């Protein structure tokens, strides 16, 4: 026993180093697995509040661009409204039974207060949290396309796992056919993402639009992602398909968070089927 104490005394400096290093590596490894990183995230009170303060200053310089994006989206939505008017005329006499009518998705607005895009594993911080009704695993988009999925949450802030992340896997499909694949990122250029697992019978052309596939309970179908930049077809397989994003991930101001109201029901059913 005495020798043990002597040993600890003698090497206490090294042991302290070892203990702290193990704690740090523990956080790191936790961070690399998608669902576990709870402790170290910028969605806490101090760093979240801090980024919020700084962002309110930075925001002032981006007003012009942000306004332009809003007007662009307004025009797009107005055009959409004009399209549907004709349809409604023929359906004027259809009675919608409100007890049967189900809304699947709810959109809410949030502001990005911290954004990184140059690292291998990028995340964003937004200024809404559990108090505003957000929860983990909600989709985050803006008018130009997908941005990511909410990862950690605190009472007033949330971190978003960006699509520019090694752990990000998103179900996407070609717009002109129903073949779907997986969107991921090789970590090189933040404008270029990769789509894998597209079956070989799919016809792929440069310039084709990629949209979200709606095969998960997070994103609705048809949200824009990007266009195909180039691809490689070898050994009767699509080796890699590079797509360039519609979004500029380096300048993101306001985003929309998508809440799927029927997610619980879908998950429950899927779990039940899988367990049988």
């Amino acid at each position, binding site marked *: 026993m005495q020798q043990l104490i002597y040993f600890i005394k003698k090497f*206490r*400096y090294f042991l*302290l*180093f070892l203990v*702290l*290093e193990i*704690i*740090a*590596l*523990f*956080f*790191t*490894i*936790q*961070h*690399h697995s998608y669902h576990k*990183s709870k402790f*170290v*995230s*910028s969605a*806490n009170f*101090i*760093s979240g509040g*801090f*980024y919020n303060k*700084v962002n309110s200053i930075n925001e002032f310089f981006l007003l012009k661009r942000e306004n332009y994006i809003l007007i662009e989206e307004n025009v797009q939505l107005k055009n959409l409204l004009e399209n549907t008017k004709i349809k409604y005329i023929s359906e004027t006499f259809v009675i919608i039974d409100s007890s049967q009518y189900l809304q699947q998705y709810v959109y809410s607005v949030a502001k990005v207060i*911290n954004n*990184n895009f*140059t*690292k*291998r*594993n990028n*995340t964003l*911080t937004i200024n809404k949290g559990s108090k505003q009704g957000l929860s983990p695993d909600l989709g985050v988009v803006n008018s130009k396309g997908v941005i990511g999925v909410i990862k950690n949450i605190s009472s007033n802030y949330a*971190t978003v796992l960006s699509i520019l992340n090694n752990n990000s896997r998103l179900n996407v499909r070609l717009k002109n056919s129903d073949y779907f694949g997986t969107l991921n990122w090789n*970590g090189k250029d933040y404008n270029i993402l990769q789509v894998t697992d597209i079956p070989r019978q799919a016809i792929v052309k440069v310039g084709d639009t990629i949209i979200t596939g709606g095969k998960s309970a997070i994103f609705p179908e048809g949200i824009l992602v990007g266009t195909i930049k180039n691809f490689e077809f070898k050994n009767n397989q699509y080796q890699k398909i590079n797509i360039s994003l519609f979004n500029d991930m*380096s300048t993101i101001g306001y985003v929309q968070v998508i809440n799927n109201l029927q997610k619980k029901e879908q998950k429950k059913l899927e779990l039940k089927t899988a367990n049988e």
Partner: protein
Amino acid sequence: MNNLVLSNSVRFISLVLLQVLVLNHVNLFGYLNPMVYITWIFLFPIKKNKSFFLIASFFLGLTIDFFSDSGGINAAATLFIAFIRLPILKAVLRRSDFDFLLFNLRTISIDKIFLYVATLTITHHFIVFTLEYFSFNAFMTIISNTFYTSIFTILLSILGVFLFVKKK
């Protein structure tokens, strides 16, 4: 003594703020972000009480991690260079005994400062990028990232030392 505590605390906070608010958004050539906060490690006075230094540098790294959502990457790397700082300094100066309280980086000649700063910076950056990419496939990316970011960090931190540290 009190003066020393105050100046190191101020340096801690200002370096964290500089790193988090400015340097993490530099993106030179698209991806280079210098990690100048480790200058705090270079400048910390050498004392008998080394345990406090280890704990403080661990928290320095962890603070950066909190702000940049990176798990414990910076904490691990910063702690490691804090641990090897004294041996490196001894090797660079080719001396085994120090006048502990009178240590001042500015009294050393420039080539030795460069050697000391460069060794610690490259070690730190290598650990950071290894833990960030966490895969053998990305080995060349890790090496090139370490190299270019290190150049940037070394330049900025030596410049900072010469501009802001008094010669006394």
